[in-house]
């Protein structure tokens, strides 16, 4: 097994149990992070798609402007050239629409690469866990067999 100092064949069942639990936790953690990244990615996709609606044709069109989460007012779309992007930690940047689209595209690609980096790690952990569980089963069976032997003799 790569990265292990002691081959798992030498570990006792309790150790193996512990190890499998630990690997379980790590797998869960990686899966959680991956799903979170995916969520953020869909948000960026949404923002980029909604940008497509702000085209010069729609300038001055009537819209219902949300002022709060439960209040809307009649208004007109005023600026179809620039939009505000929230880049985190309370910073907003004004960009023209093509550049904003570029920004979202870049962010999405960054996220995709990160997710892809996580994939092999997840798979490796999964394989390790499988091997550990197998070894554990073998050990347990060996123990049972040994006990039966002792009982017989």
């Amino acid at each position, binding site marked *: 097994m790569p990265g292990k100092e002691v081959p798992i064949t030498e570990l006792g069942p309790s150790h193996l149990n512990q190890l499998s639990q630990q690997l379980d936790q790590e797998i869960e953690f990686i899966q959680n992070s991956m799903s979170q990244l995916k969520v953020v990615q869909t948000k960026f996709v949404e923002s980029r798609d909604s940008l497509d609606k702000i085209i010069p044709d729609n300038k001055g069109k009537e819209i219902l402007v949300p002022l709060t989460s439960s209040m809307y007012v*009649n*208004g007109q779309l005023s600026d179809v050239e620039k939009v505000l992007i929230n880049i985190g930690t309370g910073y907003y940047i004004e960009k023209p629409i093509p550049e904003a689209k570029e920004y979202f595209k870049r962010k999405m690609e960054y996220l995709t690469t990160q997710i892809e980096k996580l994939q092999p790690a997840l798979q490796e952990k999964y394989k390790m866990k499988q091997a550990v569980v197998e070894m554990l089963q073998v050990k347990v069976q060996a123990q049972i067999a040994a006990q039966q032997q002792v009982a017989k003799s």
Partner: protein
Amino acid sequence: MQNSSINDRRQRERKRSNKFERNNLNRINRICKHNYFANELSKYKNKIKKRLGMLITLIGIKNDKSRISDPFKIDNKFTKDSNKIANKFCEYFSGMGKTFGSKMSYPDKSFHYHLKYTANYQRSMFMLPIDPEEEDVDEFMKRTENNESAETVLRRLEEQHSKYKFMEYNLNTKKSRLKSQIPDIRTTLDIVKHMQSKKDSQDPMQTHFQMSDNLFVAATVPPTDKVCLWLGANVMLEYNLDDAEALLKKNQEVAIKSLDQVEEDLGFIRDQTTTIESIEYLFNIERFTWKSQLVTLHDMARVYNWDVKRRQAATSSQQTPAS
């Protein structure tokens, strides 16, 4: 001969008379119908449905499901007009929420109050809170439902305990929801006030609104006195600024009131759970040393005092035979 001629004349008269013609016509009609239906029925020998349809037309049954049997009373007038009846039903159902809402008085007492003073709580198994006024242990045990057995009481207490836990969970969710609602309503009210001030000036308001999670777009809002409020359940209504302000203020009051009530109820539930938990704990300790007597508790202090007294009594009774 003359008879026959008279008969002939009569016959001729009869022939020409209307009745005769009518009878003749009816006879022909009947024969035609008979032939037609016999023909049709023989055609549909294997098609039962069509045969049945034919029979129905033959017999003349009208399966008029749309006919309204009893007249409805609308505006003090009896009517069978389906349009009017339908309209009245529509009116009733669409106005239902509003009429019920206005008739419902807002409960300004928490459920704890109702629990204590409603007639049925004494006998209600669901919510039988530990009555703080009960002092006498023996009498409590003697009550038939307790059946002088500590086991049943303990089981019942555990049931109550889980019910209280469940209620606590519900109340906590309610509390967090309300807590998030109240600042929302406050910001909405502020904006409405701001719009009211702007209404009289003529220049439009520039704003950036949130189009998506990290995207904001500029828009102009001309001065208007109409706002649309999202009431929830896919319902959005347009209001004047004053009406909107009144509605939001009322919602805010209601939310704050509910929050207070929920806090009160949570406090009550916490008291009860502590009481029950302390009973169970002490009972499990005392179980082996004290035969089936269960203590009705008001709070931990009383339990402890009782326990102390009992120990003193036990030690003194041990000492007296010795001394």
